[in-house]
């Protein structure tokens, strides 16, 4: 079985977000870059678990981005995965990114494509669904559990207020979230091995974006917390009723 795991580079969760160039670009000063947590903790580690159970599994990683994504890819390879592909396209339009991934996925005839349920930068949660249309394969979103038996998949996905279990066959696309696997830390052997694993770079093949970012904005600063005397909860109820108008 061939698995393609989609990897995205995002700012660390605790990054203080600021913008430059007239609020059109993320200020990368002091930003620590990480593998998008949903890609790393859930989809990549899930793929590694599948390979540990079945040595015939091959894992390829794909990222769409510039050369500055390579440290992230190497880190992903240190966790696991046999080789990586970087498509040299800096677009932040999901449609463009999905088309680049779809081209690689078709060429490599993967049985299973795993993505995170969203990236923590643009929060678009779009790539898996777009691949569903581009590859014309089944797509299960926000999966919390995946078992594979030969050609058949048993997947549990989150629905509003509960969970749904479905059965389907390969090939398929699955977006992963908490529950799929547990976070791992790369070990020294993995880090050493990652240095020599193949990282293939292919040039961008898609250029026509369907959207573009005009500008960013930070939310208005909270006017400051209004402290209420713990002995006067009637006052808090009054504020929630009359000022905030939420109850």
């Amino acid at each position, binding site marked *: 079985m061939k698995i393609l795991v989609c990897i995205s580079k995002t*700012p660390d*969760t*605790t990054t203080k*977000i600021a913008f430059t160039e007239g609020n059109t670009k993320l200020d990368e000063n002091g930003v620590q870059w990480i593998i998008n*947590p949903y890609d790393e903790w859930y989809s990549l580690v899930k793929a590694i678990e599948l390979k540990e159970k079945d040595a015939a599994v091959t894992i390829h990683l794909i990222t769409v981005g510039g050369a500055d994504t390579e440290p992230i890819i190497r880190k992903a390879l240190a966790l696991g995965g046999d080789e990586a592909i970087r498509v040299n396209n800096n677009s932040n339009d*999901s*449609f463009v990114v*999905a088309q680049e991934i779809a081209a690689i996925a078709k060429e490599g005839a993967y049985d299973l494509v795993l993505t995170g349920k969203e990236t*923590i*930068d643009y*929060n*678009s*949660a*779009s790539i*898996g*669904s*777009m691949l*569903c*249309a*581009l590859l*014309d394969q*089944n*797509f299960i979103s926000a999966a919390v559990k995946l078992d594979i038996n030969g050609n058949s998949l048993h997947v549990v*996905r*989150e*629905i*509003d*207020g*509960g*969970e*749904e*279990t*479905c*059965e*389907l066959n390969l090939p398929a696309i699955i977006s992963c*979230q*908490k529950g799929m696997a547990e976070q791992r830390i790369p070990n020294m052997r993995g880090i050493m091995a990652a240095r020599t694993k193949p990282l293939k770079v292919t040039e961008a093949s898609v250029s026509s974006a*369907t*959207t*573009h970012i*005009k*500008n*960013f904005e*930070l*939310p208005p600063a*909270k006017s400051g*917390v209004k*402290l*209420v005397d*713990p*002995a006067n*909860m*009637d006052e*808090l*109820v*009054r504020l*929630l009723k009359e000022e*905030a108008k*939420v*109850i």
Partner: protein
Amino acid sequence: MVLIYIDQDQQEIKKASFEAISYGAALAKQLGTTAEALLLGTVKDNLTDLGKWGAIKVHQVNNTALNSFDAKINSTVIAEAAKMLGATVLIFAHNLNGRAVAPAVAVKLGAGIVTGACALPKTDAGFVVTKTVFSGKAFASIQIDTAVKVISINQNSFGAVMSDGNATVSDLALTVPASTLKITSVNKIEGEVPLTEASLVVSGGRGLKGPEHWGVLLDLAKALGASTACSRPVSDADWRPHHEHVGQTGIQIAPNLYIAIGISGAIQHLAGVNRSKTIVVINKDSEAPFFKAADYGVVGDAFEVVPALTAAILKSKSNA
């Protein structure tokens, strides 16, 4: 024409769809066109009532096979319907099913998409949609450059606006491809409003010291009619079920009121709740970072403050 996708679950229309219709109706008015709804499958709800939220027509693909959700089939049928009806803008709720289908529909229509929109588009020059990015830490204004446009809206960001009106309902004859996935079971948490749909949420953290102390929180939730949530350490320690975990890696919510009890407010937790309209923080540590993100704060012992708040709410309700 603005076409709004009606999401259903076990033949009931989801609450998020009413808000999507109201958003679509406001956008249609802004663009000088009509707002029409699209339902796949059959539901128990009275479809003419969708007029109350602003849809003038409901197009129904009356095929019971569509009552189970399949992202591939649903997106194919929605795209075909959009083409047949000549929709120029498609609106989805950014709930779990909306996220699964809207981007696929955009691909099939060659349309630009903005997911997680939090306001009506600006359409005076171009078509610019504002969405939350960096897990609620910022907003981005994104221009859609294609003729057909797709938007999914964050829940509780616009509000469902109810007025008078009846929608006309008509059948839309479309071929529905056969699904190749089988849904074998659905587990819903009985008797609870799904957290993502709740307008009032009471949430507890490690400050409550153990699962045996959750009674004060549950009493408050009951008095308010609120859903209950918790922080990650609480669900990791199995004090509360995993489906209650809100935060970066749990569920992201945007209720009207979020009351955090004994939660310090780590950035990962804030990422899941910072779109709430009003945040109340109850914590005995006045240095808890959560106070910086709160609208109202109470510095005090949860085991005294929370029962007092519950009593004050019950008193105010009995006076109303």
